[in-house]
């Protein structure tokens, strides 16, 4: 009889605990998503300062592309090396 009660308590704690963990993390997912959206809309990361002339701007963009490509390549290379 006592054993059955212990088992019941265990089952209750399991249902309650698992339920609560899921509810809490679901709320956290919602809050985080909303927070990210809100920040993305109202406080966007300051964009790179705009250069004055068109010519410079295109050169700047090329530079940026180049940097991005190189960063990605370096990143990948390092990752592979680290293994």
């Amino acid at each position: 009889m006592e054993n059955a009660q212990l088992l019941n308590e265990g089952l209750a704690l399991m249902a309650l605990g698992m339920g609560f963990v899921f509810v809490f993390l679901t709320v956290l997912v919602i809050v985080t998503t909303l927070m990210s959206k809100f920040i993305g809309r109202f406080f966007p990361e300051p964009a790179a300062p705009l250069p004055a002339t068109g010519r410079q701007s295109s050169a700047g963009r090329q530079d940026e592309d180049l940097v991005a490509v190189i960063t990605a390549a370096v990143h990948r290379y390092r990752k592979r090396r680290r293994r």
Partner: protein
Amino acid sequence: MTDKLLTLWVGSGLYNLSFGQAVMVLVGLVLLWLAIAKKFEPLLLVPIGFGGILANIPEAGLALSAAEQAAHLARPELLERMAATLQVNLDPAAGLETWRHTLSEVLHGDTSPALLRAANDAAMDGGYAHGMLYQFYSVAIASGIAPLVIFMGVGAMTDFGPLLANPRTLFLGAAAQFGIFATLLGAVGMSAMGWMDFSLNQAAAIGIIGGADGPTSIYVSSILAPELLGAIAVASYSYMALVPLIQPPIMRALTSLQEREITMTQLRPVSKLEKIVFPLSLLILVVLFLPDAAPLLGMFCFGNLMRECGVVERLSDTAQHALINIVTIFLGLSVGSKLMADRFLALETLGILALGMVAFAIGTACGILMAKLLNTVSKMPINPLIGSAGVSAVPMAARVSNKVGLESNPHNFLLMHAMGPNVAGVIGSAVAAGVMIKYLG
């Protein structure tokens, strides 16, 4: 002359070494060997193993309180005084040895803290002092401080970027906590079948091993079942070290090659402001829904805020390195103090080790199954392998996901994707711990 030699011999460690203590010294040596030769969580197993050896030195009583030492060594007058404070009757006809035995039993049993304090005071008046490891234990673990400070350090080391870029991975961290509760049920079931004798509190503390989170398990068992702390901490840290052995077979069994080859889309960049606001919003949720998880998650969020806010580099650096190292030393030694022969060498310990393994396996499996479910409903592809990282064990579990993923597709780097569920697992197990403490504490 022979009398003096005899006294020396009677006072020696060899004469007093009990069988259990010898076994525990061996256990301590095995832990040291695992740490040094096999590199199993050396940062913790070295102090734990060494503390375990220290705790089992015969006659030294390093892990005993003043009252326990007095019960073992004191003169009859002091024993009588302690018996009076503990409100026990010592049978005058029974010999001194029986008295000592009765007193030790009472001190280990369910005696109220007030009486224990009084007995300790009586013993201290008689010239006995707490053992060194006992002091460490009461300062570091019984007060709850060491696991919490470590949690702050872990917070300061955690990058929530991957989680913020893909918040749905939090579900994986939630699913993996099923291991905790399944193990709790397992422990309760074992008691119901009459194999072991675990109370619900003890079962809950054992279950937390499935969270694969050392500080959390120590924190929970120090509150719910301090008598099992040694076994639980050892099980929890050994299984964390065994993650790369336990997880991959389960991961391969539950996924098809096709699923393991899924490449995930690049994570979006996360702004600095998001990273600063996240620990604060997590803290607010804890305040609103589960104040019992506040010690653990509060310290975690505090550590993370120090890291991300960028204005307290020095504090964040201390929390991540110097402080966490100091606390780890005392935490390890204190856990070692709980490896005393008369309490560790019990059938229950084997049960705990077995249940811990099951907890781990179930947690891993549930994380993967949840990831498969998410993959079918979500637009973005999700590789089920990252689900196994939901059992905290940062960053080992994420590395395992990455490794198994690379086996199937050498160009598929899952590490960053797996870090999301990995830190979600830390939050998940802290929430589970809060629920347990709320329900049983």
